[in-house]
């Protein structure tokens, strides 16, 4: 059974239909890259996958016992205030909310998990630092840690490298690749086609509807890729 299945999905944004006929399914361990121009419905689809938005039509189903709240999410950078007063530890730990259940405070296990992912992403030394003093790349690592606290199964990334310099971008892609190799299913919105296609196993191309869904290697040769990339993909 597939891990995530979208069937005949139609979505609206502020009362306007932005996406139609989306139909795809992912298995555990897949790495899906969602591409398309601005306004093509990528972020709206992401909101639907996170159950922040209910579809106008169709449905999204989760298989293999995946719970709706068990998805780690890395939002677009602009969505969080850069000067929010919070320490790195406070933010990472907030990723463990979905394991709070009826408990009021984070358990020792949650705190261990937070320390573990900070160690893994090499930001343990930043734990007590204020969020507002971090660089853009460090902030993305913190948010990725938070996402990893929320899940061991599915990561949802909304333009994770936008605005980052090439070195930091490469590092971040490396981390995401490692997560995927350890069995994490990755769904990523990206404008960075070349880098995205080198890691992704699947591509979903949106333009108000689904233009392409399939294996990444077939995408390069498809008509859909021609639309978005021009001749670049044949280089």
């Amino acid at each position: 059974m597939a891990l995530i299945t979208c069937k005949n999905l139609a979505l609206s944004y502020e009362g306007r239909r932005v996406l139609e006929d989306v139909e795809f399914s992912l298995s555990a361990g897949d790495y899906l890259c969602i591409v398309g121009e601005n306004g093509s419905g990528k972020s709206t689809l992401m909101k639907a996958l996170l159950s922040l938005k209910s579809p106008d039509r169709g449905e999204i189903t989760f298989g293999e016992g995946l719970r709706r709240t068990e998805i780690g999410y890395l939002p677009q950078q602009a969505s969080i205030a850069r000067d929010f007063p919070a320490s790195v530890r406070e933010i990472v730990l907030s990723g463990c909310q979905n394991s709070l259940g009826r408990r009021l405070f984070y358990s020792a296990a949650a705190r261990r998990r937070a320390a573990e992912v900070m160690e893994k992403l090499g930001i343990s030394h930043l734990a007590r630092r204020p969020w507002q003093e971090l660089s853009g790349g460090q902030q993305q690592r913190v948010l990725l840690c938070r996402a990893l606290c929320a899940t061991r199964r599915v990561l949802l990334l909304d333009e994770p490298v936008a605005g980052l310099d090439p070195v930091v971008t490469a590092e971040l892609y490396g981390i995401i690749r490692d997560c995927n190799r350890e069995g994490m299913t990755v769904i990523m919105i990206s404008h960075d086609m070349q880098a995205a296609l080198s890691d992704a196993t699947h591509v979903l191309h949106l333009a108000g509807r689904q233009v392409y869904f399939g294996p990444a290697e077939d995408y390069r040769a498809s008509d859909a890729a021609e639309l978005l990339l021009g001749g670049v993909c044949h280089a």
Partner: protein
Amino acid sequence: MLESILEMLSYPFMQRAIVAGLLISLCAALLGVILVLKNLSMIGDGLSHVAFGATAVALVANLAPLKIAIPVVLVAAFSLMHRRHSARLRGDAAVAILSTGALAIGVMAISVTPGVNVDLSSYMFGSILAVSREDVLLCIVLSVVVLTLFVLFYPRIFAVTFDEDFARASGLRAEGYALLCAALTAVTVVIGMRLMGAMLISSLIIFPAVTSLRLFRSFRTAVISSAVLSALCFLCGITVSYFFSTPAGASIVCANILFYLLFSLAGMLVKPSR
């Protein structure tokens, strides 16, 4: 000096004002951190005008002000909070319309009713004498509720304030938290208005949080600092008000201004690059 302070504390009206004021300051500061960080500080201001309008209408109709003002302000708070993401009527415009509208209705109600002998300025700018035993009781209940909720739901409050979408995706009912915050703010504004005045009560919500953010850079320290600072400014303000016969509300706001300047300076010294 000590004798004069003891004398100040010996008057029952001062005791009431101080207990009620301290508790209201505490509630306002805690709620203020959330509102300021969510860019909703104007909601507090809007609600205070609505509270004034509702109180004026209640006085004209010869009804108990609190019994009219609390439900009216609650409704206003819910509708403003509910609309905060709406694109059709921008949040700040909605607040402005509601607050000036309510103020105008209040002023009209008082002016067209002959024989209503209301000291308008005591509602506009507050009065120490206006705090009744019933108000003190309400303040105690409110502050127990606010403090308890803040401590028990601290991790969730942080999560919702930092990133509402992520919190919702993790299964948190963010809308419920927003409405609860709106409700508690509404009650705080209505009760605090007696002491601080309709024009000044929102400063109790906004100042301590904004001041704390000049210096403190983690959520926990910002919250604690806001609460402590709010209480401190209240005590400074009310003491000044007692000894120099200045209006309590304005004195408290002036104490807040002073601390804001101090914290800004300290913030610059601690972190010169900013």
